[in-house]
């Protein structure tokens, strides 16, 4: 009797295992959908960017040549990378102490602060940008306050400049940085810091030699995320830059709405895509490099 039961149980088990191993095809609808409406359009976009100059001609790289030979476009490309890089660096410097505070010091305020950190994500980017316009306006609150405190004589012209664009970008991006660093910082073994302190390291030295290196992974994740997101953003530049800050997405947006030069806009989109793919590749390399470490 017992052997029969055991036999039956074993049969059920192999059945279960078989079911688990048998490849399920439930992913097919999603795969087809994204191949059709995500991959195919991007491929078509690549073809469009190398379209022959005239009917029946060979593929042409004229849009790309235009992009990398015209000093104006080269400046735009350099500017795109610069804006993303500077925003990322500011976010890392501004965000790290916040992540540290959230993990180590916030205590019972933790959940409230976490909510405040995520709250901006519930508002539209137009709302946040608009808020900065109100605050930074010539007769806005920042200027009035600074004047009332006699810190400045005349109102500052901060709006419609690179400065206000960075302000807006950091405001939008810094939550992503903080949210990338906190889980890693949470995982840092406090005993390692205690050991360093016992062995005679000061607070600063402990932080620089123990805590910071152990949480570097979160910083890198956050940096790649912020860099990619900034590369693709244009609403902030459009509403706070006043034409002072021109990046690739802004140019694509303008090409589409003003000049309708579709092939050229496609080429710029592909360049942007290429930058993102490089970022993803670096991220992948970083992730696998970390996995190899003991």
């Amino acid at each position, binding site marked *: 009797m017992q052997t029969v039961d055991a036999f039956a149980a074993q049969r059920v088990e192999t059945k279960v295992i078989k079911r688990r191993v048998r490849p399920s095809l439930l992913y097919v609808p*999603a795969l087809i*959908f*994204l191949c059709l*409406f*995500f991959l195919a359009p991007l491929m078509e976009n690549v073809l469009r960017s190398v379209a022959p100059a005239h009917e029946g001609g060979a593929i042409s790289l004229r849009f790309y040549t235009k992009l990398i030979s015209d000093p104006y476009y080269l400046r735009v490309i350099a500017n795109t990378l610069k804006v993303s890089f500077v925003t990322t660096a500011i976010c890392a410097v501004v965000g790290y102490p916040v992540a540290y505070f959230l993990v180590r010091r916030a205590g019972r305020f933790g959940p409230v602060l976490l909510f405040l950190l995520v709250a901006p994500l519930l508002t*539209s980017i137009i709302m946040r940008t*608009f808020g900065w316009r109100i605050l930074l306006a010539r007769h806005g609150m920042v200027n009035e306050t600074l004047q009332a405190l006699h810190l400045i004589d005349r109102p500052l012209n901060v709006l419609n400049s690179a400065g206000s664009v960075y302000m807006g970008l950091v405001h939008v991006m810094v939550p992503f940085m903080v949210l990338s660093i906190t889980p890693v910082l949470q995982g840092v073994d406090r005993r390692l810091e205690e050991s360093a302190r016992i062995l005679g390291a000061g607070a600063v030295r402990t932080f620089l030699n123990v805590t910071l290196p152990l949480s570097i992974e979160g910083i890198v994740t956050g940096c790649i995320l912020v860099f990619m997101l900034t590369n693709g953003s244009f609403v902030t530049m459009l509403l706070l830059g006043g034409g002072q800050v021109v990046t690739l997405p802004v140019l694509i947006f303008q090409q589409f709405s003003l000049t309708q030069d579709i092939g050229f806009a496609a080429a710029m989109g*592909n360049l942007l895509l290429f930058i993102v793919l490089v970022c993803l590749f670096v991220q992948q390399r970083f992730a696998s490099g970390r996995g190899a470490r003991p």
Partner: protein
Amino acid sequence: MIALLRRAGVARMPLSLYNLLFFTFLVAPIIVVVAASFTAGNAITVPYHGVSLRWYRRLIEYRPFIDSLMTSVYLALSSAFVAILLAVPAAIALGRSRSAVAAALTTFLLAPVAIPALVIGFSLLYFLSSLGIGVSFVALLIAHTVISVPYVMRTVLAVYRNVGINFEEAAAVLGANRWQRFYFVTLPLISPGVFAGALFAVLISLDNLPVSYFFGTANVTTLPVVMLSYLQNQLDPAIASISTVQMLIAIGLLLVVERTYGLRALNA
């Protein structure tokens, strides 16, 4: 000892102060917009001289705001629904597999989130019009679903992997078939992930400008597109009040999900 404690306290002051400043910086623009929406005057500023609801009345009078808000909400909910239909089965099919193919497929299905939305919108516009689907609600629905799939996929994957296989195995041993196991065991277990992912998808869709921008027509367009063109043409506090309404909708949705499943699922 007391001196030591005091020193520690003093050392902590700058960090707390810094964080106070940081969180002020974070919420200031939002609070200012909410305040400006109640102004009685024409200038876009914090209401120094009286509070009124006149800019909310303006919302009702200005048709494009209401029409596009309805479109946006309807679009966000329907694209999240389609994304659930596509992403949940995919996450279940791929979540437990360790093969390289499954890993590659998962990466691909999560990819749209990493690609600049502007590029997706731009390419999709020309692709769809060559298929004969011009700018319309259907085109918007397809575009927003492409963006939404990764969000649902990611949260469902995280929850499904966390759940472990024991419950499903137990159900199988007890004789439940494939559908019974899915409906009575897997689905209730992963539903927090489904709802959290759908919430993300809805929030992203409501705020999406780069994709929606390409698909707007005179009749069918989304709220962010209308807000952008309103901002470029005229400047009055109506923008502040429509922003506040949109924020309240988002908070309302968040509260519904929070009440139902708790926000832990959002950490996925």
